């Protein structure tokens, strides 16, 4: 691990001021950042511990929604009574991710900003445009079973590893931030993460020093909440594909996918076709998919998993 200086921020103002230092980075749970620092894939010169900022509350909003503080741990969010009752898809997605030890540490904002688990991103002996821009993508001609099938580019076929973000996408969550100049903004979760294009190392639209303070959920959406994750082992593994869905009694509803793209994948314009069944809907949802030899299986897997989700929803 590279040498770094360390400070504990007690207020958002001091955290923002510290973020102007060279090589500064915020740290909260640290479960992903420290892992990457050990491999010297992340090499911050200054770490700002933001755990003292008090952003660890889940509050009811006047419009019936929920504001989730950036530092709320994944376990606390999954176990919150309101989330379990009204946002079941979110609770289920969180519980499908990582292990209890990691969920006890991992935060809401950190989960959104975690980096890909592409093995070539982790292997510093191999080219990777995300880790070293311009060096090439080892995954495209390499072992790509886990990788993206849609929205990828010739520069990068990595996926976003989060389960939580997929559920938040289907819930139309909004991300609240504080910028380095102390102004605030609200970002629809659909716009937070970028597709790789020619700059796969730029993974989200946050500016340097911009701090996520909360994620808000609109008032609960009625329907059957389902998160179905398909993976190589039954627990403690990243998704091959996952389906977050809120299904209405008529078979319509909302669907987002995990494990298929550089961000949670949802096509609202196609959702009117959900009542036509999994086959027709998947064709629209994954139109222009461009899988590799290794991961072409993800296309039928999405269609079949979605069919299973719709069948589960019919059963109630």
């Amino acid at each position, binding site marked *: 691990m590279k*040498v770094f200086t360390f400070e504990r921020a007690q207020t958002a103002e001091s955290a923002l001021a510290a973020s102007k230092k060279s090589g500064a980075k915020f740290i909260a749970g640290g479960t992903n950042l420290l892992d990457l620092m050990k491999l010297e894939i992340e090499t911050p010169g200054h*770490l700002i511990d933001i755990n003292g900022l008090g952003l660890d509350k889940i509050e009811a909003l006047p419009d019936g929604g929920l504001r989730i503080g950036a530092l709320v741990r994944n376990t606390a969010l999954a176990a919150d009574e309101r989330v379990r009752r009204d946002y079941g898809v979110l609770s*289920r997605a969180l*519980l499908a991710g990582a292990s*209890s030890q*990691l969920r006890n540490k991992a935060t809401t904002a950190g989960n959104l900003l975690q980096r890909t688990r592409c093995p070539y991103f982790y*292997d510093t002996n191999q080219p990777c445009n995300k880790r070293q821009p311009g060096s090439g993508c080892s995954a495209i001609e390499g072992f790509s079973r886990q990788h993206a099938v849609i929205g990828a580019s010739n520069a990068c076929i990595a996926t976003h590893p989060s389960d939580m973000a997929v559920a938040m996408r289907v819930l139309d969550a909004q991300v609240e931030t504080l910028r380095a100049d102390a102004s605030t903004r609200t970002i629809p979760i659909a716009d937070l993460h970028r597709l790789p294009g020619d700059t796969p190392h730029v993974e989200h639209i946050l500016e340097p020093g911009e701090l996520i303070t909360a994620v808000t959920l609109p008032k609960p959406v009625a329907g059957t909440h389902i998160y179905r994750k398909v993976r190589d082992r039954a627990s403690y593994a990243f998704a091959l594909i996952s389906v977050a869905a809120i299904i209405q009694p008529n078979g319509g509803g909302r669907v987002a996918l995990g494990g298929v793209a550089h961000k949670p994948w949802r096509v609202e314009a196609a959702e009117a076709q959900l009542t036509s069944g999994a086959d027709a809907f998947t064709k629209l949802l994954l139109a222009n998919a461009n899988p590799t030899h290794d991961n072409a299986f993800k296309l039928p897997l999405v269609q079949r998993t979605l069919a299973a989700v719709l069948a589960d929803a019919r059963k109630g």
Partner: protein
Amino acid sequence: MNDLSDLRITRRGVLKVGAVSATALAVPSVTTAQVSSSQPVQAPVISKLSFEVNGTLHSLDVDTRTTLLDALREHLHLTGTKKGCDHGQCGACTVIVDGQRINSCLSLAVMNEGAKISTIEGLGSKNALHPMQAAFIKHDGFQCGYCTPGQICSAVAVLDEIKQGIPSHVTADLTAQPQVTAEEIRERMSGNICRCGAYSNIVDAITDVAGRTA
């Protein structure tokens, strides 16, 4: 012909995976070597730190890069907590911090200022075993024993988490109180890997402590 080419692709795929994981394992030592030989060594940053471990207050001067795991093992010589993968994948380093189990390899020591930490050494002693330690012995819940301190810390936390009503991936009804079942224990213990494969006896040991039969 088809069979042959399929076989070739499969073998190459396997070799590629093998290469990726082998080099990933080699990375830490390679980069350490580079730092010491070809780059000027930056002076470490030392930070003061106090926390409570098993009821005893400790004040330390640590390199900011020190993980909680290394602080416990190398500074306090509490070597019961084990280093397995050092990347949050195996659970051997599991300790309980402020009532919650975490991977101590993925937490900086300096981020635990003021924390109350319980390690395997604090759960019981040779003459007064914690019920979970006794149950692991009774049910033969280990072979080599390397993952065992992490398994036991995790197991103690599992029963506490169920009591608190925290649901898991296999909890059928999210709004109901979760029960101690073999399925729940298996899911909740999935962050602790046992290379010897003592899993079924570990489930028996935890079930025993929970006061139910498997």
